[in-house]
């Protein structure tokens, strides 16, 4: 074939391909609008017929009409899908034919370059520059006008500041909540081991004249519907604790005055982030972590990985699912709230897997403020917030590191390598020394004014006697008291670590000791509460029987002792003050 003939053929191909593509495109376009009439989701004809049938149920012809129409609609729907799929291929084919033929045609007709004598460079440049500047300026102006118009006409109602929001919704501009004061915290029992987190009660009045079995001296005893090993917490006129099993998890709230259940907050159904299956350890259960409160909301976490926040009147505030943790003994780390942030020590797995995290959530909304990855294994201790070296420090422990973080930013302040495996005892703090426990091996006293790795420089003393294995110790600044699971109570000198005394209490303990004034309160697993003198004499001053097994540490606040037995929450003593009842919305 000659060149001209080829060109003519190509020309025809180009035209036919173009027409074909346009026709197919138009057909698909029209089809798109036709579908609306036969959309199985929105067909009004079918809906009308079904309504008619409802008024005249035995009408067989109507039924048949509905079935025919339904079949027709379904057929058209799937045919339409197939039409579009096929049409797309045809369109693509038409485009390809057009492009290929067109390119060959154009390349066969290409004009040879005929270089012109280039005009004067200088003036050409000037013209180009001017034209370019004008073009850029025009585009910029058009875009600016567009942004301005849109910005002024389509703005959003959502304002930029909480004050403006309050004005919009007609409320009072809310001052940001300053959180509970130090006095408020000390007057309550807001977290595991009390307001300071190290087991020191702020009341000196501890009732011990009670008998659990008969109810003498017991203010009230309330059943707890779901089991758990977490301790109760107390805020003003409410006692809260959490419980759960594989079917349900919940937070329970009881009245301080008479023990009646005020509300129970079920953890809402949440889907776990994909991960491992839950394996529940019988001796830990699902509700081993103790809840925490900041006086506005109560926070609870469970071994399923569910984290939930309720307002103190029982309304759900927010909830999250952190994923089922990988934890050989069961997740037991309690929650800590400080300065409007909820801290969750989510250590799990082995150190190399780097699954462990330390989360800081905004207590009001649950938003993540910061999170830290930790290359550390599972831990069963609870974090501790201390004020030392002029700043707040969040102490988090997991084998082998004790690490201090800045609660506001999550930045690491210092770390010390001194802890061992199966880490369950939580740290305590007194007179500028942080006391850590290497379970069954040693008690370590650490100075907290360092930075970076302080293993070599800040250990004040390390003592090999008297270290507990599971319970956390307690100190009054002069002595440290620790009890092992099998009942050996040790008294150490807080300044040197020397073991001053030891006593075999002849029973098992899971609950950590509490310091009440100058006395030490211990509650053994059989339900026996012992009051001892907090000095090397370790003299037993009083003894009382609960009648139920006790694994959870007690709460001692405002002249009351709260003990969580296997199935009941017991309250002993009379509250000395008149705590103001909480109003709704607080």
């Amino acid at each position, binding site marked *: 074939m000659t060149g001209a003939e080829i060109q003519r053929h190509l020309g025809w191909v180009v035209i036919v391909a173009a027409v074909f593509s346009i026709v197919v495109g138009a057909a698909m376009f029209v089809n798109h609008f036709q579908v609306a009439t036969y959309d*199985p989701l929105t067909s009004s004809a079918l809906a009308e017929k*079904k309504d008619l049938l*409802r008024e005249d149920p035995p009408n067989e012809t109507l*039924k048949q009409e509905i079935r025919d129409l*339904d079949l027709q609609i379904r057929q058209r729907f799937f045919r339409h899908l197939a039409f*579009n799929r096929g049409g797309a291929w045809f369109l693509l084919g038409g485009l390809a034919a057009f492009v290929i033929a067109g390119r060959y045609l154009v390349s066969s007709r290409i004009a040879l370059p005929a270089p012109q004598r280039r005009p004067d460079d200088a003036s050409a440049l000037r013209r180009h520059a001017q034209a370019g500047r004008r073009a850029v300026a025009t585009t910029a102006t058009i875009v600016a006008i567009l942004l301005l118009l849109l910005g002024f006409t389509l703005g959003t109602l959502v304002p930029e500041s909480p004050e403006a929001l309050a004005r919009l919704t007609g409320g009072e501009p809310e001052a940001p909540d300053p959180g509970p004061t130090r006095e408020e915290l000390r007057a309550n029992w807001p977290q595991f081991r009390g307001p300071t987190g190290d087991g020191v009660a702020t009341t000196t009045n501890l009732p011990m004249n009670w008998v659990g079995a008969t109810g003498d001296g017991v203010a009230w005893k309330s059943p707890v519907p779901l089991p758990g090993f977490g301790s109760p917490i107390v805020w003003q006129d409410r006692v809260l604790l959490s419980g759960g099993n594989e*079917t349900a998890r919940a937070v329970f709230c009881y009245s301080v005055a008479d023990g009646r259940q005020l509300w129970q907050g079920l953890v809402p159904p949440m*889907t776990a982030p*994909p991960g491992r299956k839950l394996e529940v350890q019988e001796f830990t259960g699902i509700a081993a972590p103790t809840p925490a409160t900041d006086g506005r909301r109560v926070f609870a976490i469970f071994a399923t990985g569910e984290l939930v926040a309720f307002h103190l009147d029982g309304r759900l505030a927010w909830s999250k699912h952190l994923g089922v943790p990988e934890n050989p003994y069961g997740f037991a780390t309690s929650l800590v709230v400080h300065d409007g942030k909820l801290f969750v020590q989510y250590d799990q797995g082995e150190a190399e897997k780097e699954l462990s995290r330390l989360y800081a959530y905004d207590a009001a909304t649950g938003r993540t403020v910061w999170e830290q990855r930790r290359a550390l294994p599972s831990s069963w201790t609870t974090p501790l917030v201390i004020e030392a070296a002029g700043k707040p420090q969040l102490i988090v422990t997991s084998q082998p590191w004790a690490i201090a973080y800045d609660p506001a930013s999550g930045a690491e302040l210092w770390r010390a390598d001194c802890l061992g495996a199966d880490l369950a005892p939580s740290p305590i703090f007194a007179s500028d020394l942080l006391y850590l426990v290497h379970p069954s091996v040693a008690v370590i006293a650490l100075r907290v004014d360092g930075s970076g790795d302080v293993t070599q420089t800040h250990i004040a003393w390390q003592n090999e006697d008297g270290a507990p294995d599971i319970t956390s110790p307690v100190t009054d600044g002069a002595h440290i008291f620790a009890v092992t699971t099998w009942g050996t109570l040790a008294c150490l000198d807080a300044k040197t670590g020397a073991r001053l005394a030891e006593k075999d209490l002849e029973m098992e303990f899971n609950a950590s000791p509490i310091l009440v004034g100058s006395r030490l309160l211990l509650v053994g697993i059989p339900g026996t509460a012992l009051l001892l003198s907090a000095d090397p004499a370790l003299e037993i001053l009083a003894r009382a029987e609960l009648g139920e097994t006790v694994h959870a540490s007690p709460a001692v606040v405002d002249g009351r002792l709260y003990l969580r037995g296997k199935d009941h929450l017991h309250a002993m003593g009379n509250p000395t003050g008149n705590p103001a009842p909480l109003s709704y919305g607080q």
Partner: protein
Amino acid sequence: MDPQPPKSTGQNRRDFLRQGFRGAALLGMGGLVGALSWRSSAETTRWQIDPQKCVRCGQCATACVLEHSAVRCAHAQAMCGYCELCTGYFEPDPNDLNTGAENQLCPTAAIRRRFVEDPYFEYTIDEALCIGCARCVEGCNRFGNGSLYLQVRHEICVNCNECAIARVCPGDAFLRVPVSRPYISKQIAH
């Protein structure tokens, strides 16, 4: 023999500047990769629906970029009650308990009803017909055991960077899951 004309000082200066910028750009990219690799994952992600958050609005059928949505109904048979009057299969107050089109909720007849034994019926989803409209899911969850749920099918989903359905979901039910654990299923604990 070098075919290039010798460079002027201006060109050498420009080359030096270029080298400097190139080095800075490489450093910057290296820094970016370093900073992000701490927070990156070796796995890519897929889209899934959290069945607990799904509010059965029906947009899964229409919002997907694919005409035949990648979201289809799934049936957690272990949760099913096998009821004769399945509230996910039948319209509310059905004319009769048979497979007639006037009784079925599903607009594309994607649910198959099969008699097992008295009084149990088995309901299975024909995924090729399902369009993900959530009518059966709504009926099942509101009045039944909630064994029907919508889920993204990975063999159909093109895994857009920003899922068009996720964008409009009123229940905020879409989440990214790592590719090694690509399916979220509804399950009860036994």
